[in-house]
């Protein structure tokens, strides 16, 4: 397999946890809720999926468990930020900190455990086709799942009535309530969906990408996912583009090392974070674009009558 194909495959894989987490958060933010706890939820998804995969020998069961655990965590966020009307920023931060602590605690005995993870597929005959073989049929199964998720989110938000309602809630919860929609319930559903997605993103890291469990293994991907949603101006296809761009930046450090570039590994490792800052600055600068695309009620506390 030639280098370019290899690079593409790896970039897509590297970007996939971001795809899951950012698509989930996009749906959450479209409903007007800002959940900063993505990092914590991804870590919990990672550790739970790893533990379950290790104990049951079934990696797919692990993925499901990881998604469920992260979703459960997001319910705590929903209760405090939506029902008890706490500040969304603070609650999201609390969720991240809690998730970091919980995952470190739960995974303490699993740091050197080895499991059989989910490996890239191989379709007889098709995967061996030149060039397109691997590019179309050689990805990790979860990558395909992420593409289906993208399609589902795009269709849901812009082609279904339920998606229209969700967008309306994000635009103006007061108006939605006045018409008779149950704003809090809709937001709960969005938050749980976002949690499950973040969980799958974390599970991908622990079960397919490495596969292993290391404390703090997301290394800030949850935060990068949040920045991605802004970068994508809340449009799903741009999330995909951004995630894969970041995936390739993440790879850059390994590529540079392999190519013998004489830059210390730590400095190369800074690239994704610096890139995130750069991207945020560029996008946020266009205040009009943000105003036109950001859900108008994002992060604002909502008090029904």
């Amino acid at each position, binding site marked *: 397999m030639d280098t370019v194909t290899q690079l593409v495959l790896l970039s897509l894989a590297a970007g996939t946890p971001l795809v899951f987490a950012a698509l989930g958060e996009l749906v959450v933010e479209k409903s007007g809720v800002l959940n900063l706890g993505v990092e914590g939820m991804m870590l919990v998804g990672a550790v739970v999926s790893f533990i379950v995969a290790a104990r049951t020998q079934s990696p797919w069961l692990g993925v499901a468990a990881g998604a469920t655990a992260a979703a459960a965590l997001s319910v705590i966020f929903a209760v405090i930020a939506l029902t008890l009307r706490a500040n969304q920023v603070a609650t999201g931060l609390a969720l991240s900190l809690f998730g970091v602590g919980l995952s470190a605690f739960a995974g303490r005995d699993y740091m050197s455990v080895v499991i059989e993870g989910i490996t890239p597929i191989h379709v007889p005959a098709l995967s061996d086709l030149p060039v397109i073989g691997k590019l179309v049929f050689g990805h990790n199964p979860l990558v395909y799942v992420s593409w289906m998720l993208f399609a589902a989110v795009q269709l849901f938000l812009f082609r279904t009535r339920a998606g*229209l309602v969700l967008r309306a809630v994000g635009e*103006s919860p007061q108006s*939605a309530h*006045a018409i*008779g929609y149950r704003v809090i319930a809709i937001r709960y559903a969005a938050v749980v969906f976002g949690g499950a997605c973040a969980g799958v993103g974390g599970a991908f890291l622990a079960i397919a990408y490495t596969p292993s469990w290391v404390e703090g293994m997301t290394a800030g991907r949850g935060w990068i996912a949040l920045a991605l949603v802004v970068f994508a101006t809340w449009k799903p296809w741009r999330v995909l583009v951004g995630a894969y761009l970041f995936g390739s930046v993440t790879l850059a450090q390994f590529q540079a090392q392999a190519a013998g570039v004489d830059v210390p590994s730590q400095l190369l490792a800074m690239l994704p974070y610096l890139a995130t800052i750069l991207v945020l600055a560029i996008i946020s600068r266009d205040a*009009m674009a943000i105003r036109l695309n950001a859900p108008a009620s994002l992060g604002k506390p909502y008090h029904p009558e």
Partner: protein
Amino acid sequence: MAAPTTPHATPAADAAPRLALSGITKRYPAVVANDRVDLDVLPGEIHAVLGENGAGKSTLMKIIYGVVTPDAGTMRWEGSTVQVANPAQARRLGIGMVFQHFSLFDTLTVGENIRLAVDDTDAKSLPARIRDVSQRYGLPLDPRRHVHTMSVGERQRVEIVRCLLQKPRLLIMDEPTSVLTPQAVLSLFDTLRTLAAEGCSILYISHKLDEIRALCHRATVLRAGKVTGQCDPRRETAASLARMMIGGELPHPQHREATAGAPALVVDALDVRAADPFGTTLREISFAVHAGEIVGIAGVSGNGQKELLAALSGERTQARRNAIMLCGKPAGRLGAAARRRRGLAFVPEERLGRGAVPEMSLAENALLTTRKGGLVRRGFIRGDAVRACAAKIIDAFGVRTPNAEAAARSLSGGNLQKFIVGREISQQPKVLIAAQPTWGVDVGASAQIRQALIDLRDQGVAVLVVSEELDELMEISDRLAVIAQGRLSEPKPVHATSAEEIGLLMAGAHRTQGAGVPAAVG
């Protein structure tokens, strides 16, 4: 105001009421919003619910529409007792409501907005049905337009058509004319009469006596949550209705003839690009307010008032220093605090969140804009001076509150407005700008505030009032101008103009100053 036209024949009084409320009560922690209210509406009747701000009208309507649940009382709909748990159920019963504050989604189209509120599943035929219904009732709409491109009057059409598509048998209209020009009001009345003739009952909420007398068959009057009377408004005078509404005469401010002095606020060819993508751009706005006069700026909301006020107050600064002159000196580049130091004071449209910080005490809110009088010394706050300042405002303006430590959000709308107006006046400004000074304020406080503005004028202060209430402006202004689509008309003395002329200006039939296409009516 609107010329009374022959009202439609009264529906038969012995028909069974379509809606009958009995003993409805709703309590909130600070106030009893509805106290054993009885109300009945006949089929095909236009029934007014009259009362001043804070009388409980909105709450009663929310109860009927299922947004709020009553603490006590019953509701009978077409003969059977019902408990409306939510708006969807209200709609199923055949009740529709057009809110005072629209429940629309700016970034969505008319079609999408209506689809959200209409409960049937036939989405394909919806655009055709929207066109159909909107034409039939004189409220033409294009389903593909995005709401944020529409004027306020047009948005109201969306609200109404949204209701009409559900074929309501009772239509509730909550203060519908505050966003309409006088001509558009007449047009709305025609629509409502057509509906009533078809058998639809209409509940018309308002505090505007002339409108009710022109439009409605019957009126129920609310005061402080209780029903104080029921009548046929066509047989009453404004004075008798006012007596039922507030228990006394409508107060009229004391007016003296104005003697205007030097120009204190001069705006010269002000061009402001809208900050908000859905806002209005101001073009070549020029006018002057002299010491000792009140200039009023009328206009339907959404025509640039927000942008103009932000530019005048200093919340948004200009590139050209001479675009705005305060007391003869250029002030365009100065921020809000600097303009205050030059003698400007401003009462904003939003009380909570802009004019005052809701969670802070009145004392702290006094400190918000007051820096004179030794409240701050070398950067440090003098607590006693601040408390004394707040106490003086509370006292001088009759603000009803236990003390200066009460949080701003614990005050009623009228009292908080009195405090904010009082705070700004207490700074002895040379120029005072007031936006919607009596919106949502009870009649007593309204009268007090209007009188305070007039007294200020008599003391030689230049006063600018920007308001959507044309009656109020015509009452207190010396000169009047109209803002429409970001342009300002030539201010004219009040006695030299009429409500009709103002109405035309509001609709955009402008003097040509490169004005371009006049706006759609409404």
